[in-house]
């Protein structure tokens, strides 16, 4: 994907969550957004996803201007922190809903089963979310995200609601997707994982992109004192 931001702004009431954000990430496969809470990571991801409209400025994705429309949302998939599966539908039905009602693919059932099978969820296809563990739920959510073959996957802190073992289970899956060559943007607090999986990492604080660089470079020798302090704080334990 090719992703760039041009003088992007977004406020909630008097609070400027995204404050004149500009950056050209160039051509890349995976981008990780890191930084302190309230720095604007999730809001930026939601603007890219077409779930929130920016107040000003623009996001360009693969040469197209991102809009807050259903048409745009159909080409992307979002994986949320809280899974956001539909509790009244089985795992399989959760995958079928977008496939059948939005994308109208003819072989929906076979494709959905194949996606569940891939993530070792075939035995759970007919269970409702309440009968699944947190890690299984998030894997179903990821299967729902990839089954429509989106242009870009967007992960919003996909492991923040999981215990360490389940976190590993979900990160394994994301790493597989990376190996497969899928493009994604990931908001995460898992610094080790961001370093391993992302081509490029952007550090956001106070509604601005303080710096962005190839993952190795940013973690080894970040240019800004703010980023170095943040990394020192979160990597201490």
């Amino acid at each position, binding site marked *: 994907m090719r992703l760039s931001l041009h003088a992007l702004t977004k406020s909630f009431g008097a609070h400027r969550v995204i404050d004149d954000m500009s950056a050209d990430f160039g051509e890349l496969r995976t981008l990780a957004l890191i930084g302190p809470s309230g720095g604007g990571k999730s809001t930026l991801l939601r603007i890219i996803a077409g779930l929130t409209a920016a107040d000003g400025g623009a996001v360009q994705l693969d040469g197209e201007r991102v809009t807050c429309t259903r048409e745009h949302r159909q080409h992307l998939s979002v994986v949320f922190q809280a899974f956001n599966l539909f509790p009244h539908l089985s795992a399989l039905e959760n995958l079928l809903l977008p496939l059948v*009602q939005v994308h109208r693919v003819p072989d929906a059932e076979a494709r959905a089963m194949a996606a569940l099978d891939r993530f070792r969820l075939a035995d759970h296809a007919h269970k409702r979310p309440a009968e699944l563990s947190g890690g299984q739920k998030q894997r179903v959510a990821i299967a729902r995200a990839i089954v429509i073959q989106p242009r870009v996957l967007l992960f919003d802190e996909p492991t923040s609601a999981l215990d360490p073992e389940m976190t590993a289970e979900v990160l394994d899956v994301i790493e597989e997707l990376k190996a497969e060559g899928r493009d994604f943007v990931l908001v995460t607090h898992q610094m080790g994982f961001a370093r391993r999986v992302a081509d490029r990492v952007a550090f956001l604080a106070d509604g601005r992109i303080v710096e962005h660089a190839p993952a190795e470079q940013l973690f080894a020798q970040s240019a800004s004192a703010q980023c170095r302090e943040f990394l020192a704080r979160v990597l201490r334990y």
Partner: protein
Amino acid sequence: MKARGAGVAGAALVFGFVVYAALWRLTTRGGWESVAGYWRLFWNGWLGTLGLASAALVVSVVIGLVLALGRRARWLPVRALCTVHVELIRGTPLLTQILILYFGVFHLVGLENRVLASVLILSNFAGAYLSEIIRAGIESVGASQLESARAIGLSTAQTYRFVIFPQALRQVLPPLAGQFASLIKDSSLLSIIGVEELTQNGQQVASVSFSTLESYVPLALGYLVLTLPISLWSRWLESRAHFET
């Protein structure tokens, strides 16, 4: 559970005996015999009540749905109109509404068909109450569900159909069933416009047989036969909804 069942059965037995003893004292053999001769009037009235309530049930769900969605509409005049209507209906007695609508509005527009008028009045009344139940059900579906529906690219109509309604239905079914029991009982007020239903026919039997209590006790039983199964069903739905969460 067993002890509770025995308790309920015991209470019902005692209550039944008291009612029986009271009826034994207050009614006469001759009274029951003369009323029994009019069983067909009771039967027709009961069928009339069943028909009116069933028709009103269907129409009231449609009205309730329209009002509930209307109160969530983006356009302020629609929202305001639906709110005023719901509050007007909920704030006035059904009897008053029957008088105003049947003898006032319907008379002016030339709608003289009593059955049709009854169904309209009753479903308009129940619809206002249903709309509040439906609205609460819709609002019980969390914001993250709506977000998720948006994220996978569903339209607003699809979101209602596949995400909101199926989840809201589970929440609203028990109070909805309770509302249907009320609707059946409320239909008795329609007797004042002389439509053929249970209360109206019970009054007719009372006036020709001169046996009041003997005419009105079957009336109560006729309503209980309809409302008891519904309230038991509602209770069962409620317990099921609890287990699922």
